[in-house]
């Protein structure tokens, strides 16, 4: 009994030394050393030392902890070694993930500089402020639209390409290619597609270029995107009757288009449709374009894993192609769809680059992630920025929980 207590005390002591004192002292020596060195030492010497000493840091850390634990009583050693390997990971996770998360939640209850407690005021703002309401509306549009469209296109492309006799790999790599372009790159590309120049300048945007170079003016002359005829005459698009270029990313609704001008107030459908946020949808297209390839690859792998016999059996029983897809293929790839949907939902909640590069949130096209940044850096309001961050965080929680429970349910089967 007494021996047991002694052992336990001893192992606690070892634990404190191995997991707290030793790493702390080791870390502090490094920190102090480099702090002093960086003031005086030559830059190249510093870089070399940082690589040498820095890379051996973890090695020496584990070596020391290992040595210390070996002094502990035998029956505790196994548990301690386990803790030794998990410990640094948990420590780093709490330092870089848990601590900032808790700090953000804390700050969301304070004012713009994080000085005075203001309760739920930032959250009240986030559900009443018009710009926030628009941002939340856009976020919902994105969540529903992007996730559904990517899954739909991904499924269709994967299923159809699976049927191809030749060139499946080529076809799939073409669809997958946008995934290899960075989000910023794709956004910049699409920005050129949607680009607008004031008349009479040459339209350099793809859509406006096509738009203004077709048709004829009222006086019967051709419209053109400032092209030249053989005898050097310029064909512009400024005459009456030619199509007018449109600033696509600045259209927050459809009301500037002929179909929706002078609407009959009784026509509820057209009136609702005229409020469709065009620029938000045009930006969503960028993300759909980028992620369809990803969904396709995952679905394609899942479809290929379906045993051929089952599909054959369905055919022999006389099921149509659509029936086979719905009743045979779908149940098989359902969990894959859920995984892809989860990934997409989280990606959309974090979506930032597309809006940041194209409109930066102007003309009611903002998203939560950009709004969070704006509140902090543009309006210098820490509290509101933190509140938006917490809202994004809260939106992600149910999806994570859903996945955890689904995994558990599958494991029990």
């Amino acid at each position, binding site marked *: 009994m007494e021996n047991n207590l002694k052992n336990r005390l001893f192992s606690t002591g070892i634990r404190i030394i191995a997991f707290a004192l030793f790493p702390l002292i080791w870390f502090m020596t490094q920190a102090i050393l480099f702090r002093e060195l960086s003031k005086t030492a030559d830059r190249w010497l510093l870089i070399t030392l940082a690589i040498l000493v820095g890379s051996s840091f973890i090695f020496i850390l584990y070596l020391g902890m290992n040595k210390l634990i070996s002094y502990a009583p035998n029956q505790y050693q196994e548990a301690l070694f386990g803790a030794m390997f998990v410990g640094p990971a948990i420590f780093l996770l709490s330092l870089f993930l848990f601590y900032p998360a808790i700090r953000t939640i804390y700050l969301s209850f304070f004012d713009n500089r994080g000085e005075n407690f203001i309760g739920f005021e930032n959250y009240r703002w986030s559900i009443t402020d018009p710009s926030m309401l628009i941002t939340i509306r856009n976020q919902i549009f994105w969540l529903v639209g992007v996730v559904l469209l990517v899954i739909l296109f991904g499924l269709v492309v994967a299923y159809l390409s699976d049927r191809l006799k030749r060139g499946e790999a080529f076809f799939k790599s073409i669809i997958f290619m946008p995934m290899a372009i960075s989000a910023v790159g794709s956004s910049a590309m699409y920005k050129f597609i949607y680009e607008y*120049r*004031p*008349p009479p300048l040459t339209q350099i945007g793809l859509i406006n270029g096509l738009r203004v170079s077709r048709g004829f003016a009222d006086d019967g002359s051709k419209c053109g995107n400032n092209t030249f005829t053989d005898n050097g005459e*310029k064909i512009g698009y400024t005459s009456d009757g030619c199509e007018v270029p449109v600033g696509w990313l600045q259209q927050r609704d459809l009301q500037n288009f002929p179909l929706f001008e002078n609407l009959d107030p009784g026509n509820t459908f057209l009136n609702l449709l005229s409020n469709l946020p065009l620029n938000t949808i045009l930006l969503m297209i960028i993300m759909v374009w980028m992620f369809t390839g990803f969904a396709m690859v995952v679905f394609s792998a899942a479809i290929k894993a379906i045993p051929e016999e089952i599909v054959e059996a369905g055919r022999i029983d006389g099921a149509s192609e659509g029936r086979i897809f719905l009743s045979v293929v779908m149940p098989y790839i359902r969990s894959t769809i859920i995984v892809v949907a989860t990934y997409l939902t989280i990606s959309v909640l974090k979506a930032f680059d597309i809006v940041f590069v194209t409109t930066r949130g*102007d003309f009611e096209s903002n998203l939560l992630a950009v709004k969070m*940044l704006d509140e902090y*850096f543009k309006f210098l309001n820490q509290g509101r920025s933190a509140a938006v961050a917490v809202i994004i965080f809260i939106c992600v929680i149910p999806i994570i929980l859903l996945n955890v429970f689904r995994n558990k349910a599958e494991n029990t089967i």
Partner: protein
Amino acid sequence: MRKSIFGLLLILSMVAIACGGGLEGEEVLMFGAPATDGPDGKAIQASFDAFEEETGIIVTYVGSENFESEVQAQMEAGNPPDIALWPQPGAVRDAAERGFLIPMADLDVDMDAYRTNFSSYLVGLGEVDGVAYGGAHAVNLKSIVWYQPAEFEKRGYAIPATWDEMIALADQILAEGMTPFCFGMYSNGATGWLATDWMEDIMLRTGEGTASYDQWVNHDIPFNDPIVKNAATLLSQIMHTDGYVVGGTDAIVSTFFGNAQDPMFERDANGNPGCFMHRQASFIPGFWPEEAKEGLGTETTSFPFPAIESGLPPAALGAGDMWGVFNDRDATKAVVEYMLSPDYFTAIATNVNDAGSTRISAHTGFDTSLYWSPVVQAQAAVLSDALAANSFRFDGSDNMPPAVGAGSFWVEMTELAVNGPSYIDTALDNIENSWP
């Protein structure tokens, strides 16, 4: 194992003991928004190179497109540069209020000389509770309208000296089947600032001039005051009169401000330019197409924004940058002293390394004949006179709280451009209500 660690530590600590003396070879880092390899960044570095030759202090200028967010993060993390160059004084005051900056008086700056040289108005922009934290750097002129003299002469147009003359000229151009104004205010994440600039220029020339302008910026008069409403109405006259702006009212918010003037350089089938007048700040030539840049000062030049109400002295609207200092090392102090002397701008103004910077010194004692370009010389003369006469006013939206100056004011001006004159009251009421 243990022995080798101690050995290593010993060697490292010996290496650490090495010290320099004097300011020779000391390094000072300046961080700002103009890109390091852009015209302004290169010019600033050229000026510091001259300083290094004299004193041996190595000053490095580093610029970043995301300067404001980066410097914010650096301040919070306790790792700021030695000197930061902010594009607006408001950010300097914010950093000072949060206790990050060293007051100018603690940097061995002769405050009386500083006030005389840079005008007490500019110095005041960097003050918090009467303590100056910011150093005035460069200023630019916004109260100008760009035009092409040859096109004006060919048609017998005179440069309008008053608002009414400008409107009469616009009507005449319109009647002759052409478009008077270029106007584009789209700007990623900042759409609307061009209209706020117009408002400020109009405010300086209506009501009680600079006096009512200051009241407006400091919110001593409400945002929906009749003087402000009058200014918005005049602006709306430009934006919403049929045929006044290129591409019509719809095009105003879609046109990127940097491309807005391009129609002026285009010629239609009859040889007429796409527009005749473009009110925009002195930095806009940087956005022109290459061929147009060559004609700066000859083919394309500017006239002062016309007077509106008679009896008001001429005023100049402008903007400028301001630096703040994060430590009081002797080397930093020496750099501060240099930046407050007229010598600092010599290299920038004379375009010593062909960088092509069009920055104008905020130092009223700087010899304006030194500027390399006649256009800059003319602007510098206007600015210098305005500073000396205390009729220079800083971009008001930069000095309003960010929720207004970078928020509702921009947004509501964009809405006004889209929705037309009937929206003026709503726009001004919304801005008034958003004032924190």
